[in-house]
């Protein structure tokens, strides 16, 4: 049994497979982290876009309010 495992071909083969496993595992970990970051970024962008829209809407409604009622409202 031991002699089989110490055979160069087999030990190299096993070593390579384990190394491949390690590399792929690391890559998957990295991609998952990046995905998490992307999700976070996407959410933030959405929120910001919404924020911009709200603010713009505020501005316009303020101008319209002034023009309609002659009263100034704080920006």
């Amino acid at each position, binding site marked *: 049994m031991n002699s089989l495992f110490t055979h160069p071909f087999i030990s190299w083969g096993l070593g390579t497979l384990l190394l491949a496993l390690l590399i792929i595992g690391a890559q998957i970990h990295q991609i998952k982290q990046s995905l998490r970051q992307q999700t976070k*970024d*996407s959410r933030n*962008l959405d929120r*910001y876009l919404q924020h911009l829209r709200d603010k713009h809407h505020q501005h316009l409604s303020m101008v319209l309010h002034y023009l309609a009622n002659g009263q100034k409202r704080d920006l």
Partner: protein
Amino acid sequence: MSQRVIVISILMGMNILQTVSAQAWSLDSLQALLPYAESDTARASLLIHIAAQMVWTDWSHTSTAKQHLLEAQVLLRETPYSPLRGRAYSILGKIYRRNSQQDSAYSILQKGIQEAEQVEDNQQLSELFSQLAGLMSDRSRYDSALLWYQRALIIDQTLNDSANILQDFGNLANTYGSLDSFVQARFYYQQIIDWHENNATSSLANAYSNLGILLYQQGLYDSTAYYFIRARELWEDLGDPYYVAVVGLNIGTVFTQIHDYPKAYQYFQQVIPIFDSLGHKAALANTYNNLGSLSKESNHPDSLAKSNGYHVKALAIREEIQDSSGMASSLNNLGGNFVELGQAEQAIPYLKRALQIKRRLRTSQGKAMNLYNLGLAYYSLENYEKAHSYFLQSLEQAKSVSSPNEQRLAYQGLADVAIQLGSYRDAYTYRLAYHKIQDSLFSVEKERQIQELEIHYQTEKKQATIDQLAQQQEIDHFKIQRQQSQIILLLLFMGLSGLIVFLLQQRNRLRHQQQLNEQLLHQQELRLQHTIETQETERSRIARDLHDGLGQLLSAVRMQLSAQKADTLTHAPSLEMLDQAVSEVRMLAHTMMPRSLQDQGLESALKELFSQTARTAKLTIRFEALGVKERLSQAVEIGLYRIAQELLSNVIKHAHASQVEVQLNQIRESIILTVEDDGIGIPTNLPSTGMGMRNIRTRAEAINGSFRIEKGPIQGSIATIKVPLAIPHD
């Protein structure tokens, strides 16, 4: 001629075991209990136990034991059969056998068997069968003994009682040995040996020892020595010096037989101190006797004198322990040696005394040799008639015990005497008989040698086969092991490969997801920029409309009103209101999109923004613009203006600063806007995703620029926006 002694020690392991366990209860304590036995059964049970103990302890109380057993039988007469009664029969049988009352033993054992068979008490049946077989052996009815031992074996095998099975094997082997059925005897000894698988037990040692004796009887001395040596090793392991010595004595005898005298001498010498220390005088005498016989065989000139020395020692011990048979043997050996030394006169009294003892004991053992030695002594003294008479008696004795060697010697003696007496015809006849026996002995010896060689050959052949099989087995084992490890390896490889494939799929799926997300993010960013641009465009349009449209209209109305001089007083409040309205519309338009930014450029717009902010927020704002000579693109100007606005708003809201320094520089192909404050600086846990920061970053990215915020050299923070001018932004 002298006799050698081989000590035959056929012992059964079971007897030893029974003795040991029985000693757990002492005889005295059992007897003390007797008066307290209330019921008949209890008393009978105690009586049987006492009798058993007496028989096991020693044979001197047999009559008492017998009385106890008979009383127990009377007490148990009315009760149904129980193993207790079977036991009583068995012990009684043993006592009768011991007392040579064979008929009584037979009838009691038969009765016991009959009763035990009715209730199928197999345990007692096996014991009773063995007893009966022993009885048959005592009567030399070995065939019958075999039958009973075999029945006992069958029962013990059914009961799976290994101790009794081993005992049965031993008994069967001994009985076959007595019948000269050496193959069967050897088979049963081998069974015992195989059973033990080299575990050092007394039973195994006995099996080796007995097998050795069996082979000795067959004249297979090499094999005998082998088994005796194994037995001796086992006894050594078991720590029983007596049996070590007994087997050592036997090994010495075997070596004497195969003429390996130095080894034989060594073994005999080894056993002397053991027997001496253990006080086994008979065995010690036997050893001296054997040493005497051995010494004679060496070629040393003093060999006979030395031999006599040993025989004298043996004789002295035998006289001391009153071993008549042994004494006769020693006396005969001594006489024989004196005859060979040419001291016939001295020999005769020894030999005659030996003969006298043998006659008194009515034993035929060694008698022919004794008579022959006497014949030789008288022949040396030229008393041919007496010599003739003794040789003739020796011949008759040898014939009666069917001993060819002694017959041959007697014929030789008779022939020599006949020659001396001038009876040449008789001499010829005797010589002829002598040669005939000599030839037959020679052929027997040859046959024995051939048989031994055959056994050697067969043994070697078997050993070679065994070795080959063992080797094959080892190879097979190795192959199986290799196959197993190959399967394990294959599974390992497959498992790892499967895992890798699965993980690769997983990785590709995640990568695809990542790419999709990237696209989504890009689209989101585009949408954001587009929204910002649209918003700015809309703001600037509304601001322009307010300023140029409503603002201009209100200005025109004011001018018209003020032109009407007459009603100046009347129109004064209206003019004031109109001024306020124009100012508010301008303010409104400015808030939406500073006019200065559109008309005069970023530098003026920023100056205006900072002066206004400094006024309202009570801040000292220093603004410096260096190297900005021409107008920038509208997108860059609006972007940088909004960023400055946001940064300033952040400083007012969060930094608690008193001074702000703003620089707008054009260095080569880049515009750099720096806003530095002396506030509390940026907190370390500032969320990079806050709306303000996000706003600034997105606006910077929208105009292809970069944004950085860091701590100031002493306090506060420095925000830097760098926008390259080489790439068109519109």
